[in-house]
Every structure is written in C-alpha cells, then in structure tokens.
C-alpha cells in the first residue's frame, strides 16, 4: 500500500459498521482494491490530465453532522415544480410525500430495515475502482429511488446535494440508486451546490447508479455549480434494458476540480441514449468528463454531444470511449465534442474515440476547438443586435443549447439561471433575452 493511500484511508477512519454481511464484503473489497492499487496517477490514461495528488494529500475528515441545508436551499432556489430532496454532506432528509408512482427512501433506512433489497443493486452499474471504491468503502447514506412499473411521474424529482465546507477539510460520500420499472417514465434533476462556510477544501465523492428497465425512459439533468475549494470526484453508472431510453444533460459550471466518470451499458436491444453535456471553466478551474458507452446488445443508439466554454486559465478534459462489442449489430454510436476558446491561456484536452468489434455499425467521432460561428454572428447582427452583444448571446447559447427540449421549462430555467450567473455579461444577456 502506498503511503498516500494508507494516509487517506486511515484518516478517513473505519467503514460504517453494523451493515449486512454482503455490504461489509463490498466495503472490504473496495478497501483492498485501494490498498493494492492506490489512487490513480498520471501514468493512467484516464488520469493523464487530471492530478489528484493534492486531493490524496489533503487531510479530509468525515463531517460531523452538519446542520441541515434544507432552509438554505429553499431560500436560494425558486420553486421549480419538482419534488425536492436535500442531501447535506451525504445525509438525506426526506420531507413530504413524493409524487405518485415513485418510492423514495434513505439508503440508511433500507440498509437497516431490509438490506436484501439492495444486495444485487448496489455496485451493479459502477465498478468499485479508484474513487468509486472510496465511496463504496465509506458511504453511510444516500437515496434509493424506485419508479413503479408503468408509472409516469407527474412531477420531476430534484435531488439537491449540498457540500458544506468547514474550517478543516471535509469529505462527503453521497450515494444514489435509481431503478426505473418496466415502461416507467420520469425526470430527475440532480444539483450539486456548495453552502458557504469555512475556507477549507471540500471533497464530494458521489456515486450514482441508474438501472433503467425495459421500455422505460429517464431524463436526467445533472447540474454542478463549482467553487474554487470544491473537489468533485463523481461516478454515474447507467444500465439500459431492452428498448429503454436515457436522456442525460450534464451541466458542469467550474470548480477547483470537478470530474465525472459516466459509464453507460446497453444490456438489451433497441435502447437509446442521448448524452449531452456542457462545461465552463474560468480562472484556474479544472473540469474533467470521462465517458464510456458500451454497446453490448444489438440495435442500440448512443449520441454523445459535449460542448465546452473555456476562459481564463481554465483547463477542461474530455474523453469519451464508445465500445461496440461483437454481438451489437445495428449499433449507432456517435461522439462529438466542441469547444469554444475565450482566452489564449485556457486549455482543453479532448479525445473522443471508438473501439469497434462489429461490422454492422454506424459510428462517428470528432472534436473541435474554435471560435463563434460566423453565420450565427452575422444572422444576429443583421437583425440589429450589436456585435459585442451578439457574441455574448452566442456564447451563452453555445452552453445553454444543452438544455433544449427539457421539460418542464422551470427545470431548464433553473439551469439557465446558473449558466448566466457565471458568464461574462450574464446580466446584460439576461436583460436582452429575458
């Protein structure tokens, strides 16, 4: 075991006790993995452009129970029509009844009451490696969302994760498990916010697993509003059964270090995944997206479209691998990453790639780093919009396009507000367009 790994694990303390035997086994395997492999360094391809040396050396401690962030969230966010759940540094509060057709429970409660219900599901979509193993070893609570077969939720569910930095470095290990029953449909919004507090660094090590049943559809909007001292090392694993649909919109707005590994597997034929994302970096922020799409079953469609806005001395990393396995005939796999450079000192490392082991496939991949679209610019100016304002509007549109088509409108609006709050001249853009 490396000193680093040993240091971090020992500081973080023993895994939560009192769980079922299978969970103790899962945690033990995770710790063993970390002990043997250590935390990833730059020698690993997927970590080449993102250093976690600082993170591993930071003396993070488990948070003492922080005060609930529910009131802070309700004050900060307008009512978006969704059923809201607030999770404060990994601790979930449930308030009121969820929309009809969905059961929402604290993972801590389920583990205490009927642990068998989670045995085959936890860890099914996210492999227990690297920082996912850290979460597996240490998580205490989280959210279990079960959408009943055939249910169509009338309201979205909004899970608000709140990081609460203190005077000393803290870490939180949120866990989410979503199971969409056969033929069900739902919209889930996840927001990651930081409640101002102490100045120390804060690590959010989140793992979310989404299991979409046959012919079910989930729209998932994931919004992160980063801060300089916030570290997010997150995992999202998705598995799709026959004819399932997953519509993902990721919006990552900065942060000292914000990384998401998204792994999606087609387990049944005829399923569809739309993986759209937008990120913005400024100052010395670092945002990293690692996507893996595995076509294991035939006739599935995946379309990855990520857009990045790069300002200041920001650094963005985008890496996507589309794997089409031998039996996945009739697959369609497309990957695109477009970046807009607003500063000479910002950088992006982008690498969409495909690994195809099957003849009958439609596939494409590509990435660009460029400037604003000249035709769009002329179009706005020909309508009387002065050039500087037209550039502002197009810069905003480049990012906000990721939200096109999201219903209800209030959900998209919430994300747009967050985008405008970060952009140069955001107030002027809001005034021009609002």
């Amino acid at each position: 075991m490396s000193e680093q790994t040993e240091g971090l694990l020992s500081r973080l303390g023993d895994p939560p006790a009192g769980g079922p035997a299978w969970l103790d086994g899962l945690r033990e395997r995770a710790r063993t993995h970390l002990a043997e492999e250590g935390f990833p360094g730059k020698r690993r391809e997927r970590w080449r452009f993102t250093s976690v040396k600082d993170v591993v050396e930071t003396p993070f401690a488990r948070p003492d129970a922080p005060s609930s962030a529910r009131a802070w969230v309700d004050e900060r966010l307008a009512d978006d029509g969704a059923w809201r759940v607030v999770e404060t540094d990994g601790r979930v509060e449930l308030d009121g009844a969820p929309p009809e057709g969905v059961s929402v429970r604290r993972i801590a409660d389920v583990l205490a009451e009927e642990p068998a219900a989670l045995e085959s599901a936890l860890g099914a979509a996210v492999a227990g490696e690297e920082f996912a193993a850290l979460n597996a070893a240490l998580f205490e609570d989280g959210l279990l969302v079960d959408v009943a077969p055939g249910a169509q939720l009338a309201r979205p569910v909004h899970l608000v994760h709140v990081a609460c930095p203190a005077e000393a470095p803290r870490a939180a290990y949120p866990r989410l498990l979503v199971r969409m029953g056969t033929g069900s449909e739902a919209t889930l919004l996840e927001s990651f916010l930081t409640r101002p507090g102490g100045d120390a660094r804060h690590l959010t090590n989140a793992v979310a697993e989404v299991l979409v049943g046959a012919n079910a559809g989930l729209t998932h909007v994931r919004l992160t509003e980063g801060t300089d001292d916030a570290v997010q090392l997150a995992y999202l694993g998705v598995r799709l059964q026959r004819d399932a649909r997953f519509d993902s919109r990721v919006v990552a707005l900065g942060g000292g270090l914000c990384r998401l590994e998204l792994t999606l597997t087609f387990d049944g034929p005829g399923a569809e995944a739309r993986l759209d994302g937008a990120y913005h970096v400024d100052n010395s922020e670092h945002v990293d997206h690692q996507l893996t799409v595995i076509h294991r079953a035939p006739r599935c469609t995946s379309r990855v479209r990520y857009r990045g806005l790069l300002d200041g001395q920001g650094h963005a990393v985008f890496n996507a691998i589309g794997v089409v396995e031998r039996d996945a005939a009739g697959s369609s796999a497309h990957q695109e990453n477009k970046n807009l450079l607003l500063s000479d000192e910002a950088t992006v490392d982008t690498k969409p790639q495909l690994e195809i082991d099957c003849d009958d496939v439609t596939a494409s991949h590509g990435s660009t780093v460029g400037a604003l679209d000249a035709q769009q610019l002329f179009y706005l100016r020909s309508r009387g919009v002065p050039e500087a304002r037209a550039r502002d509007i197009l810069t905003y549109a480049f990012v906000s396009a990721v939200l096109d088509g999201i219903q209800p409108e209030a959900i998209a609006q919430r994300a747009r507000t967050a985008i405008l709050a970060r952009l140069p001249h955001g107030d002027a853009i809001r005034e021009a367009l609002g």
Partner: protein
Amino acid sequence: MSMLKIEGLHVEVEGKAILKGIDLAIAPGEVHAIMGPNGSGKSTLSHVLAGREGYDVTAGTVTLDGEDLLELDPEDRAAKGVFLAFQYPVEIPGVSNVYFLKAAVNAVRRARGQDELDAVAFMKYARQKAETVKLPKDLMKRSVNSGFSGGEKKRNEIFQMAALEPRLAILDETDSGLDIDALRTVSEGVNALRSPERSMLVITHYQRLLDYIVPDRIHVLLDGRIVKSGDKSLAKELEAEGYAELRAGA
C-alpha cells in the same frame, strides 16, 4: 426620391468579379423582383446589401434614403431599416425564438431612439406580429430555427421582418424549397407587410413566387449584370422562353 439606390456596383469575391455594374433604384412602397439563374450574382447582391463579410466592393455606391449603406456595420443597417430574409435561415440552439427577437427589436428600437419594450409589452407585440404572419405559437418558444421545417424557417423570417418593421426588405430566395402550401402562407405574410413606406427586393430563381407576390418591376440578372427590366409580364415571358435567349442576346 428613391429609397434604395444602387449605382455602378461592382463586387468581387476573392478576386473574382461577381457583380459587374448594377444600377437599380427602388421607390418607397415599390416591390422589385430580381430573377436569374444560379451563379448570376443574386445572393451576392443580397449579402452585400445586408453587410455580410467576404465581399469586396470595388466600385459603385449603395444608398438608402440618401445615406451611404456600404460604410455601415450590419447592425447599423438593420437600425436604418434594412432587413434580409435569409435563403438559409441560421439555427441557433440554446436561444428561444421569441427572446432572440426581443433582443433584436429592442436593439433596433434603441438605435432608432425609441423606448425599449419590457417583457410584458414585447410579448403582446410579438403575439400580434405572429398573428399577422400566422406563425404557430409553439415556434415562438423553441430555439431559433432549430429543428424547424423548411417552411417554418421561412415563415419565421417573415415573422422577424414583421417585428422589425424595415424600410427595405430583401427576400433572398424565400421560395426555394417550399411546397405550394408553404409558399402561399409565406407569400400572404409578405403581402400583409406591403406598405407605402416599405420597399421590397424579392430575389428568386422561380417565376412561381411572383404569382403570389406580384412585383411592380422585374429585373433579370445574368452574369453580374441586369440585362433586362420590365413590368410583371416579364416573368411570364421568361417562363416561356427561359434565360437562354437573353444570354444569347447579352
């Protein structure tokens, strides 16, 4: 006095002469059509009038109400009352159609010394304009031209034209790619906007459009020059004889 006056206009693209001496005057309230085959310079003319990049004006003048247009940025031309309905309207995902138009209308109002419209006043204004050109309501909320059909895009151009109330409207092949129903709807929208204070320049490849938008004058553009002008009957003549005869004559 002419509203739009083009004299001796020569335009090059990357050193290649495209327009080779255009003279054209449009009086207030008149609708002129320019017809011509592919490559005759029709779209170049519309782009140069609207101020698109990539064109070198090597000789000639263009004035609107006596003011030099060629020295103005595109947005300043829009403020003076120039409007170009694009042949290929541009998609802008991420910005809703109606908010895009609000930004445009208020920019133009500001430049014209008028008060800007607040959100409530603008919505009322936009709904009324949408009514004029029969724009379906859901197109106002969607992103600018994004995923619109060909007909919807052209109708959206006319909607913008209605809202921006131009002095000079240039319609660049507004009919191309439209079926007859869409053509009729778009033409009705254009006709509803004809007025004694507004001039129009309708650029088209096909005579068919001019059955619906009946012009006061028709000019035939061939190889960068206007080779023939006449009244609306010229369109029928061209339909019967084609451009070949004129080409032989030129």
